[in-house]
């Protein structure tokens, strides 16, 4: 087994970008401040010096324009990686992503594919208020033709990008903004690419299934630790892929634990958690021993003040309380 090293999520993203640029000449990175500034979350620091302005392309502030351009470049032989600063800003590019990238393959009768990777930061937790903190992944996960992924670990931040680039479909990558400083252990060498089709069990358990993704994974794991002290063994599933959902992995777990709590930083109404709950109710109703519970963001634009931001978003304490309720403790 090769030696392990400890790196941050941010470094993992940067390594993945660098590897992609080295392995495939068709790959280029494009977005606002990805070059001289080094990326708004510093994920592309140093890449401009190594790869030059053609491949590390700073863009003007025009999300629809440069995301649309990445789609055109993908349809014409390139493998663009486009960075949108946050999911909130990606609303300005929603037309291009939904009306073109997601639709073109089917609408053209299979003649054109759009192998583009669109990365964006998402989520709350850094007191950035209502225009930089939302979790709108669900809107993308709603759209056929898109693959939506949410790397929640350093290994996935490092390994999902290459696999996404091999995909002929538009892949939207959601990097939760609170993860960039997190650290994890990775092998020092070898192929680090990972699957982008399956959910994985991050912690096995027999009593309840906690289903989550992205920035909420560590909160769910913290809740599972707290619950273990009470003798409750939680199985924690990291969705990893938000579209298409890996429902079989969820069903397999829920059929063993008979209880499910879904943790989703999106607003509860019309959320991904609602879709997962519906699928579990449709396909595992008679396996359930308790109603499905959800821990989601409150129905409010994410506030600036720290205590309000915490109150508005899922926290370990709320997850613990939801688990106790489904266990009737």
């Amino acid at each position, binding site marked *: 087994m090769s030696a392990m090293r400890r790196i941050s999520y941010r470094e993992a993203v940067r390594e993945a970008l660098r590897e992609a640029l080295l392995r495939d000449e068709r790959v280029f990175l494009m977005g606002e401040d990805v070059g001289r500034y080094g990326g708004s979350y510093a994920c592309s620091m140093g890449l401009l010096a190594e790869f030059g302005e053609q491949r590390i392309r700073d863009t003007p502030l025009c999300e*629809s324009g440069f995301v649309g351009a990445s*789609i055109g470049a993908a349809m014409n032989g390139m493998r663009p990686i486009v960075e949108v600063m946050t999911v909130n800003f990606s609303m300005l590019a929603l037309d*291009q992503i939904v*009306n*073109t990238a997601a639709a073109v393959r089917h*609408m053209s009768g299979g003649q054109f594919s759009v192998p583009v990777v669109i990365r964006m930061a998402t989520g709350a937790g850094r007191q950035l208020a209502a225009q930089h903190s939302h979790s709108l992944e669900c809107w993308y996960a709603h759209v056929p033709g898109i693959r939506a992924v949410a790397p929640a670990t350093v290994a996935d931040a490092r390994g999902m990008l290459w696999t996404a680039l091999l995909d*002929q479909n538009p892949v939207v990558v959601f990097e939760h903004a609170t993860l960039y400083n997190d650290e994890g252990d990775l092998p020092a060498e070898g192929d680090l690419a*990972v699957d982008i089709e399956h959910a994985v069990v991050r912690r096995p358990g027999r009593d309840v299934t906690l289903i989550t993704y992205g920035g909420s994974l560590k909160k769910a794991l913290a809740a599972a630790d707290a619950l273990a002290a009470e003798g409750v063994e939680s199985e924690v599933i990291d969705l*990893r892929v938000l579209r298409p959902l890996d429902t079989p992995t969820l069903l397999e777990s829920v059929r063993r634990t008979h209880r499910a709590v879904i943790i989703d930083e999106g607003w509860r109404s019309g959320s991904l958690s609602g879709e997962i709950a519906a699928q579990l109710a449709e396909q595992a109703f008679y396996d359930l021993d308790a109603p499905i519970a959800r821990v989601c963001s409150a129905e409010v634009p994410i506030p600036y003040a720290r205590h309000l931001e915490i109150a508005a978003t899922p926290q370990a304490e709320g997850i613990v309380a939801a688990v106790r309720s489904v266990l009737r403790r």
Partner: protein
Amino acid sequence: MSHSAGETKVRLTREHARELMRQMILIRRFEEKCAELYTQEKIRGFLHLYSGEEANAVGVMQALTADDAVVTTYREHGHALARGLPINAVMAEMYGKVTGCSRGHGGSMHLFGAAQRFYGGNAIVGGGLPLAVGLALADKLLGRPHVTCCFFGDGAAAEGEFHESMNLAALWRLPIVFVCENNLYGMGTALDRAESVTDIRRHAESYGMHAETVDGMNVVDVEVAARRAAEAVRAGEGPRFMENHTYRFRAHSMFDPELYRSKAEVEEWKKHGPIVRFTEWTLDNNTLHRDDIAAIEAEVTQLIDEAVAFAEQSPWEPVTDLLRDVYAPREAGGAVAP
């Protein structure tokens, strides 16, 4: 005399004049047939006809090579035919048949042709412009000498994507010919009710782009301007912009009662239509004769009849294939264990 795309000078040989005339008449008759088929409910959905604007698609396409790319709008039957998409496949697409150029998934507004590098009718006004920027960026990065030609209407000039794309194309000196088909109305809103500056050309100039105004009712003028633009773009001079003044003879779509313009205005424009003018001109200078035009009409009628027959006889996509082509299959070697 030979005549190939990539040359700037237009030498209007008899053969070339006949070809321009043939393409314009083909488009006009195709559109008339579509309107007829719409009333018979063979064609459904939205149907936007190009009648009156033929000189633009036909003239511009003369300047493009087979390797160049075309991006266009939902009023794109003329562009598709002038670009060489097979007429049978285009008509079958109108019907929604599986033999259509988009397998019946797109219909009138979404004609695609990979073999012709025809990147589709985009029905989001302004939505095709960023795409054209990306196609051209890829060609530039890959060192290919190709041009991307992007058609859109005057309505697009009010969209943010228009301005974003003008800026990106000029900033990065991309090989694009932008062709604004200014037919004076964005659906039912007259240009001067939608734009603070009605010279759309000036918007392009404000981004440092060379732009010119072209008589979009004169196929020869369009061809000359397009050749000039394409040659400059191919020479690495960055993007060029054509504002073609033209006019749509028919309603915006089949649902439009045309309350926003007078019949007299339409009739006045029809007197100076592209086919009328080119006919008068070629007959006057003896480039073509009445027999030639009659022969073109006969030829075109037969092509369209065959296209309708093809579409009528073609099968529908099986419903079992409903989800086909939503996702592309994984490239070999793509799947890796978690």
